[in-house]
């Protein structure tokens, strides 16, 4: 019998403290990666320093080690990240999924301002990116909705499915994306254009309430606008650009995703659709790369 009369939801507490622990590991790594690497090079995980100390004590190594000179290890060893960091990377997606489940409504429905703010903070904390539901005066109709699989888009006149390196079975649309080709010719196609077609989404610009009032402005504004897409079921997160309009309301879907986006989100199976959170990425300096965004270890918060 406990002394206070109230019980702790241990599952909830464990999940929340696990998240705090992951963020603390991430914060340490972001700020002092050299320290983590140095400790990893001698088999020590910072969070497990007590276990390490116990091992040293029981093996009698502590007294002896004081007599040894420091090993000649460089401050920033050139080696792959420690297993501790790799583990943290994979656990971050689980943590994100856990936390989103506590913010998102149980049934698919529009998010409140408070829910959107919490998600923005969460994405900033975890990935160091500024992801927002609204940029200036522009916002999507939906920030939490159903995404469906799209085909590849023609990148230049004459492009065909055989020239796309992955997911050829998805096919290529007979028409152009809403913003036309990515390049004027195959010769003009840049690696950046290739990435844009790989990681693109379709959004329902046609249903924006002000679409008919300021069409030209919005058309330009949305062209290749960077967004972040999160599958709340598994925490998988990808940065993409808006490159097509749709889908139509009657489909019951709110967004479309390129074959690469859907595959990364693990939504390219079964009905090839699923719930996602989609926010704009505020990235005026163009530092956020397109593609999977599991764990941003290069940026400091």
């Amino acid at each position, binding site marked *: 019998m406990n002394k206070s009369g109230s019980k*702790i939801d*241990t599952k909830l507490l464990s999940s929340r*403290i*696990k998240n705090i*622990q992951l963020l603390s590991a991430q914060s340490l790594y972001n700020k002092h990666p050299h320290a983590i690497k140095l400790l990893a090079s001698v088999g*020590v995980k910072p969070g497990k320093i007590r276990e390490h100390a116990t091992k040293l004590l029981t093996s009698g190594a502590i007294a002896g080690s004081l007599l040894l000179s420091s090993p000649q290890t460089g*401050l920033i060893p050139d080696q792959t990240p420690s297993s501790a960091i790799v583990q943290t990377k994979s656990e971050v997606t689980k943590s994100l999924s856990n936390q989103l489940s506590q913010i998102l409504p149980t049934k698919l429905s529009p998010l409140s301002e408070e829910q959107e703010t919490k998600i923005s903070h969460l994405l900033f904390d975890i990935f160091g990116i500024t992801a927002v539901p609204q940029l200036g005066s522009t916002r999507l109709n939906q920030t939490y909705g159903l995404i469906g699989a799209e085909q590849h888009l023609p990148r230049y006149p004459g492009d065909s499915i055989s020239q796309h390196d992955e997911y050829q079975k998805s096919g290529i649309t007979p028409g152009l994306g809403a913003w036309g080709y990515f390049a004027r010719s195959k010769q003009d196609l840049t690696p950046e254009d290739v990435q844009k077609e790989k990681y693109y989404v379709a959004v329902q610009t046609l249903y924006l309430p002000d679409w008919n009032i300021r069409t030209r402005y919005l058309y330009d504004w949305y062209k290749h606008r960077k967004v972040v897409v999160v599958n709340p079921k598994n925490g998988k997160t990808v940065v993409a650009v808006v490159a097509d309009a749709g889908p139509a309301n009657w489909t019951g879907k709110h967004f479309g995703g390129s074959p690469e986006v859907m595959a990364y989100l693990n939504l390219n199976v079964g009905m090839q659709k699923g719930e996602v959170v989609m926010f704009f990425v505020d990235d005026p300096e163009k530092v956020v790369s397109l593609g999977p965004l599991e764990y941003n270890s290069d940026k400091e918060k």
Partner: protein
Amino acid sequence: MTKIFYDHLIEIEEITIKIDSHGMEAEEKKEILSLVDETLHHHTLKVILDNLSFSKHEEFLHKFHQNPLDPDLLEFLKKEVEVDIEKIIRSESKKVKQNILKEIEKALVP
């Protein structure tokens, strides 16, 4: 439990008492306290490195992994860090503990 050289500045008893007062299976308590412990190690190491000159990081980290219990580590930090490192470790760990205590409150089932 093995004592790390900064343990006396952190003191997680507050959290242990809080958890004990609400009853919890031994295994669950062990898991939660292990996560708390890891969190505090991450924070404390970050606080130390934030305040220690970069040129001294390698020396400190070697000493630290060779003997995390060594009280001389604190003496080393006091000598090398310009600010009151004990005070900073105390105050920063207090913030983390308060955050964790809040999480425990949020997880209470009436």
